[in-house]
């Protein structure tokens, strides 16, 4: 199961609305626990596929390294990724599957219809190798508590 706060859930959906008709993408930071991936923070990433941004996304490895460094300082790990499907189902595509290599991570997809976020689904990449990997439908638990981002903002205001 994927656990994330309502504010992070809303934020990743809003990201998809903002980039419509292009795909958005980002990284889920948190901790992997026996009951699933717990998201503590989401980080927006740039989509480098400017040649076909309406139906492709790619996060630059350089950006990913920066995000990973930042996460480690906070005691967090990369536990998943999110992206949007503009005017397409919130289901993984063959491209999503072929390009998925982070086993154990959650891949969250939001359908954005005419600029409005619709269904959001999560898929857990499982397996032991490229040859036997597969996506499993992953339940999402929306937690009503403050995200790390909100707590940081509050600390800044105090």
């Amino acid at each position, binding site marked *: 199961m994927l656990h994330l706060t309502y504010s992070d859930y809303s934020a990743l959906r809003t990201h998809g609305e903002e980039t419509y008709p292009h795909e958005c993408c980002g990284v889920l930071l948190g901790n992997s626990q026996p009951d699933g991936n717990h998201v503590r923070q989401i980080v927006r990433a740039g989509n480098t596929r400017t040649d076909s941004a309406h*139906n492709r996304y790619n996060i630059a490895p350089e950006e990913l390294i920066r995000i990973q460094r930042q996460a480690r300082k906070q005691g967090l790990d990369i536990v998943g990724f999110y992206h949007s499907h503009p005017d397409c189902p919130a289901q993984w595509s063959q491209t999503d599957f072929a*390009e998925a*290599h982070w086993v154990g991570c959650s891949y969250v997809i939001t359908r954005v219809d005419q600029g409005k976020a619709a269904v959001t689904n999560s898929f857990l990449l499982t397996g032991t190798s490229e040859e036997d990997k597969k996506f499993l439908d992953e339940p999402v638990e929306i937690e009503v508590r403050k995200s790390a981002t909100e707590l940081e903002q509050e600390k800044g205001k105090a």
Partner: protein
Amino acid sequence: MKINIPTPLRAYTGGQQSVSVPGATVGEALEALTCAYPDLRQHLYSAEGKLRSFVNLYLNDDDIRYLPQKEATPVEESDELSIIPSIAGGCRCYL
């Protein structure tokens, strides 16, 4: 040098986020890594022994594919090598 292990490969390094290995070049460090953790090899290299296309290796902030000496690039104890599988995908369908 220190090698940063991404989340999906930590199952093969005893859960360690990073490991320290000896080596005078990137290639030697990688060899030391896969000798210490043999199960990692198949996840980094194809059956032909080539680095898998979706595996990115960064020496500090540089992609080793674009370094003049590539895996023969000399490294120092303070250098960090990051293994970063690619993140990509996207919807192909149209309304």
